[in-house]
């Protein structure tokens, strides 16, 4: 038996919106102690999304034994769209069933909707991501990061992110010309404005903007985005929902050397 109630149902809606472009079918895992989580890759195995909603982030959480539930994310999104942003959402599944139930309750309990989504038995591929110390950790307003990614995508296909003592530089080249955006650290405390850069060593890596842009679908989840970089490693873009969970994206860098392929 699995049962989890999220008072702020909008979080689940936003979580789904932030993964459904990247992945079509995925296995959600419900764990008795850890909570509700998912790891999935896009079809070309270039990017990965890992999300987790902590067990104690839910208003009510019960999971008797670990369950892995395969869902079609587009179909799940269709159902969650029917929930209002103010609704509380409860997910339920039997240990031997073949559906997951979603219950939406309006704040005043005057409307209760029940939806059942058919589960799929699928095989999904999981990567073991090692715990690494990253050379650079950037914290910045998530809206700012979204803006930069979408702006640069109108000029070029890839972005070079270089971090030095000067700050973070995002640059791209396209047929019509070049673009550079530089951000410097500030001393704001407000998460909607704060830019902080922890620099171990300078990093310069190139990424496909298409993927970064789809990561920014998670912007509504958090005011702040945390970006981690190390030479020769995938970038990590993380959105933390305080007390509830997080969604992290990984993207493999482009090969720098043109002759290396």
């Amino acid at each position: 038996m699995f049962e989890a109630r999220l008072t702020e149902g909008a979080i689940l809606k936003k979580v789904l919106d932030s993964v459904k472009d990247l992945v079509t079918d995925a296995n959600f895992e419900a764990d008795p102690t850890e909570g509700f989580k998912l790891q999935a890759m896009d079809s070309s195995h270039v990017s990965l999304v890992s999300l987790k909603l902590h067990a104690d982030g839910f208003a009510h959480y019960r999971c008797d034994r670990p369950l892995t539930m395969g869902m079609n994310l587009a179909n799940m999104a269709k159902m969650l769209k029917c929930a209002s942003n103010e609704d509380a959402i409860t997910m339920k599944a039997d240990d031997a069933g073949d559906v997951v139930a979603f219950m939406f309750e309006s704040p005043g309990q005057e409307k209760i909707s029940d939806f059942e989504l058919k589960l799929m038995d699928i095989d999904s591929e999981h990567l073991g991501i090692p715990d690494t110390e990253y050379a650079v950790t950037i914290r910045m307003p998530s809206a700012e990061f979204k803006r930069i990614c979408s702006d640069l995508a109108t000029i070029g296909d890839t972005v070079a992110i270089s971090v030095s003592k000067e700050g973070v530089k995002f640059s791209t080249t396209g047929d019509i010309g070049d673009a550079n955006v530089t951000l410097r650290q500030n001393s704001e405390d407000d998460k909607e404005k704060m830019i902080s850069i922890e620099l171990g060593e300078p990093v310069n890596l190139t990424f496909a903007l298409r993927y970064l842009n789809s990561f920014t679908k998670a912007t509504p989840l958090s005011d702040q985005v945390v970006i981690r970089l190390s030479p020769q490693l995938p970038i990590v873009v993380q959105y933390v929902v305080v007390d509830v969970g997080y969604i992290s994206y990984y993207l493999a860098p482009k090969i720098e050397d043109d002759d290396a392929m």
Partner: protein
Amino acid sequence: MGIKGLTALLSENAPGAMREQKFTSYLDRRVAIDASMHIYQFMIAVGRTGEQTLTNEAGEVTSHLQGMLMRTSRMLEAGIKPVYVFDGKPPTMKGGELAKRKDKREEAEAALKAAREAGNQEEVEKLSKRTVRVSKEQSMEVMKLAQLLGIPAFEAPCEAEATCAAMCKAGLVWAVGTEDMDTLTFAAPRVARNLMAPKSAEKPVLEFDYEKTIAGLGLTADQFIDLCILCGCDYTDTIRGVGPKTALKLIKEHGSIEKILEAIDTEKYPPPKDWEFAGARELFKNPEVMDVSGINLSWKAPDEEGLVEFLVKEKQFQEDRVRGVCARIRKARQGAASQNRLESFFGPPKIISSTIGKRKVEETKSGKGSKAGLNKKSKGVSGYKSKKT
């Protein structure tokens, strides 16, 4: 061609060995392509209307070049890294099969003549496809094309698929791209079909896993080879009245062809005279392959001027088309082809399966699988308007 009925047999008895993959999921994967097999397909399918195929002004067929150019660029644009392997000399044991094919071709040629006289267009088209053969020159032309496109190309000492399998075993490539199922009999760890299918066909890549194949069938590697010989391979005949299903049953019961011959009623199921199954088995177990150690694979930018010289001047392809392909490949070298997969940082993935829910894919998959097994002819033309290049 290939192993008779193996795909259908696998989809029924070892469905876990087959997986549908998206074309895009082959990004950054090295694939050894059995080029000779594909050339033959292109000659049959690409740009054909009735008896007419693509030719240049001199009347030389160019279907193989057209097919190779388009399908190769499709792979390169998706970031796939192909290696082309061409057939060398056929193994002597294939003589029987080759003679049979020649007979069939001659038969078809005679019938074609009759159909032409009778003015039966449908028959003419059908029969003219059967008269197709690939000359050494055509094979060399495709090799030249591959080199101009910057793709590594090799001539195998013997059968191309055997060398492809050896490359895959050595870890030089991720999978072997072919439609010929006997590549699996050569124990290639991973065989991918439909990689060279046209984009318009929208076929998913069908991936076969060797380990899962023999595990799924419950056979040893040697028994799997015997099973393939019993099903029908290119090298020798089969026992009359024994099809794939019976073959699997017999192998499971008796363990080898020798034991089967002792056990079955040879009156009812007569084995071929002087049956050389042991020779065929040896060919599958120890085929003559290229020495793949120390090969360093690299993919270069296309030689645009060289391609124009070859395809436009010699073969009368449209110049803007050839240059367009070059531009797309160059762009892909900056884009998809310069992208790493996450596995190259985090190691291979492990598979997690759902614990609840219905496995609905199983049924549709086996349905599709057996259909794919029966429908051996590639429908390669739908995307192309017949047009002189």
